[in-house]
């Protein structure tokens, strides 16, 4: 995939690559590589494998909720402990729900979109030979892989995987007797998260340092593509937001295994046994968790929005609308995201005054987010639209960002949240944003940059069909879930059969489950297209989409060291719609017209 070259060259980032080292074997070139492109692809492949696991877990959830009393004979042979006699046990269901959320957020979207594409694109788009710290970068991937394997291992321990939700609220997650997953499964979950945070820190440091100090000459900050801006800002937010979760995880591990009482109050009686703890606060965990948890969703969504903003112009053939204001909106959202975490805790028992404060600041976030959405929509005005596959997914991003964002209006204020907290309204909202915006952006990125990464084209027809099989069911499922929430259906329920007021949701759950199976099945088409194209796709040229950013000025795939000579940047990233010998666009390195 890349030509072999001396590693030192990439580390200094300034010296031209020397000739190929004679003894750089397969392992050094493709496995233990410090080349950001290989590392990015490693993250992407790992994330896609984890996505298959996460999607399978989703299928299990929907099978249970769509057909609550059905006996799944085939599944009971595959998963005898989880579905004895073909009926899923509640303990298995809760572990599936917990791991689905954990894996999708941290090991699919974060690995593919944030770490994978972040690693691949940022050095290329800033005109660098590699990241600022290539060895640290390689280390970040291997720690990430260890984290993923650790998380998967938790399925196989006594008591099964963690089952207290991806939010892991104590005391449920702290007391082993409270739910089977809180035996070893929860401990392994915490260890896996510690590794994840270490890996993310190493990667985040790289992105920030690279954007700050390895930009090509002429590439000022305001000439950067929105992709780079979004990764840069997301990395800073992540670096600052993750440590409180580390602190919380340490304290939870101590509560679980060493008898401390950080989160466990006095007077607990679990499974008929009085616990000796005193004075801890379950709310402390919630504050620490959500201090990370809220910025984390912006760490995921900002790159999604940035990527969509760069895919779109290649298919509208005109610049993005409102580049400057979009940059400032990204900065504003990042800052505000760090002070709104309490909107996850309106009914938690925290002071009502805090509720008023968090409602107000959450309201403030509406403004920059809406402005960003308006900019994306306005970018379509006067466009000459070509509906290739990446464009379809970028349009899907705009659509789901809008509808998901509107759901946020309901949840962000304390009053409506009283009725909607912990119901399916929340599930519908966050899936539209994280599952929708980020996932569609991830697919868009995969289709858009596949030619650059692998030197081959994916099938357009299969890609378009994949869009339809994804967008329509996805919208159906999560739009409907908002209304399930309005009907009062709580989250994390193994079944809705115990309540009279929820009987009316049977039909809706059935429709949702059918749509979910279509959605999940449709992803097989993507996988087939992806894998087939890796080996048999049509050869790709340097710049099949006619795009302006720096990665499109080098070969597909780029050689080790990316650029023969460091490019000199003369333009911003959106010179579409002007006539040059290249066509109706000018790459960032193209000389500006002579004065006079």
């Amino acid at each position, binding site marked *: 995939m890349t030509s072999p070259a001396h590693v030192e060259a990439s580390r200094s980032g300034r010296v031209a690559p020397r000739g190929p080292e004679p003894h750089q074997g397969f392992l050094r070139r493709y496995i233990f590589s410090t080349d950001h492109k290989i590392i990015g692809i490693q993250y992407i492949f790992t994330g896609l494998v984890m996505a298959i696991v996460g999607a399978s877990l989703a299928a299990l959830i929907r099978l249970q909720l769509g057909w609550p009393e059905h006996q799944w004979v085939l599944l009971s042979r595959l998963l005898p402990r989880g579905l004895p006699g073909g009926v899923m046990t509640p303990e298995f269901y809760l572990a599936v729900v917990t791991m689905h959320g954990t894996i999708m957020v941290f090991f699919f979207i974060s690995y593919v979109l944030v770490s994978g594409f972040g690693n691949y694109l940022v050095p290329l788009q800033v005109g660098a030979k590699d990241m*600022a*710290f290539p060895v640290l970068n390689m280390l970040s991937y291997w720690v990430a892989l260890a984290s993923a394997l650790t998380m998967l291992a938790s399925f196989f321990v006594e008591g099964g995987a963690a089952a207290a939700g991806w939010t892991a609220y104590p005391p449920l997650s702290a007391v082993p007797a409270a739910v089977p997953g809180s035996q070893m499964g929860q401990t392994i979950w915490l260890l896996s998260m510690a590794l994840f945070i270490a890996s993310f820190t190493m990667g985040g440091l790289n992105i920030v340092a690279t954007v700050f100090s390895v930009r090509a000459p*002429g590439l000022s900050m305001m000439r950067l593509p929105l992709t780079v801006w979004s990764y840069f800002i997301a990395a800073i937010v992540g*670096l*600052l937001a993750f440590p409180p979760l580390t*602190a919380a995880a340490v304290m939870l591990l*101590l509560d679980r295994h060493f008898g401390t009482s950080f989160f466990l109050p006095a007077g607990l009686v679990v499974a008929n046994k009085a616990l000796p703890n*005193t004075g801890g606060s379950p709310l402390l965990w919630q504050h*620490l968790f959500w201090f990370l948890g809220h910025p984390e969703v912006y760490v995921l969504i900002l790159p999604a929005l940035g990527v969509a903003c760069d895919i779109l112009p290649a298919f509208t053939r005109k610049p993005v609308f409102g580049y400057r204001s979009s940059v400032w909106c990204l900065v504003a959202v990042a800052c505000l995201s760090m002070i709104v975490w309490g909107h996850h805790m309106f009914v938690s028992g925290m002071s009502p005054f805090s509720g008023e404060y968090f409602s107000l600041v959450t309201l403030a976030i509406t403004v920059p987010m809406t402005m960003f959405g308006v900019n994306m929509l306005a970018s379509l005005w006067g466009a000459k639209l070509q509906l290739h596959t990446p464009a379809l997914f970028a349009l899907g991003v705009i659509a789901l960002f809008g509808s998901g964002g509107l759901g946020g209006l309901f949840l962000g204020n304390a009053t409506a949240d009283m009725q909607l907290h912990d119901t399916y309204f929340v599930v519908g909202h966050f899936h539209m944003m994280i599952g929708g915006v980020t996932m569609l952006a991830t697919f868009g990125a995969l289709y858009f940059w596949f030619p650059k990464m692998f030197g081959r084209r994916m099938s357009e027809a299969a890609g378009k069909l994949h869009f339809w099989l994804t967008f329509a069911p996805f919208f159906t499922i999560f739009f409907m879930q908002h209304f399930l929430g309005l009907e009062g259906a709580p989250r994390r329920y193994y079944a809705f059969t115990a309540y009279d007021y929820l009987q009316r949701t049977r039909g809706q759950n059935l429709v949702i489950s059918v749509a979910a199976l279509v959605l999940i099945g449709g992803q097989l088409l993507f996988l087939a297209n992806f894998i087939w194209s890796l080996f048999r796709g049509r050869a790709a040229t340097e710049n099949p989409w006619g795009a302006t950013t720096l990665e499109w000025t080098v070969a597909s795939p780029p050689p080790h060291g990316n650029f023969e000579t*460091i490019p000199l940047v003369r333009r911003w990233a959106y010179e579409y719609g002007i006539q040059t010998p290249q066509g109706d666009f000018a790459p960032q390195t193209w000389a500006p017209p002579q004065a006079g």
Partner: protein
Amino acid sequence: MNLALLPSAGAATDAPPRLDPRRAALVRQQQVRLGLWMFLATVAMLFAAFASAYLVRRSGSDWHPLALPRLVWVNTLVLAASSSALEAAHRAGRARRWTGARAAMIAAVALGLGFLAGQLAAWRLMTVRGASLAASPQSSFFYVLTGAHALHLVTALAVLAWTAAAAGSARRDPHGWSAQMSVCRTFWHFLGGVWLFVLALLLLS
């Protein structure tokens, strides 16, 4: 930010300036310093999280201030001495007094090890007194705060030891050693600052 790489006026040529090794080394140092400061920002956030948890917990009705063993003060002095030795090594290096620099570095490492040993002894003293990890909220926080600090110090000590070893070849590459010292000193003094912060928290009554 690319100070060394500003295109010269009227650069219509496509060949960007090639960097000489001095300039490349300077840019590299800037990058490493930036990476270090960002890493220290994450460390600061970690201790801020522990500190906020500590301060909120302190306001509980069952909180009794913890009596710290005198050894903790001795350890603080040892850490301060280690930082001084590090600074002495830095000054010696600037004045090209390499033997002196090397000796001071070894002293800094030894004193750093002494601090860690002293902390271990302090923990043992606390446990013997009945203030074990799970004994009370104040003792739990004592171990968490000092433990987190000690773990970070172990990493810093490794950096310190590595820089001390490099002092031997500093004669040949004074700029390289100076760059390493810069990282080492920033990390070490930062953790010294964190220790004072932790101590202040623990002494709040």
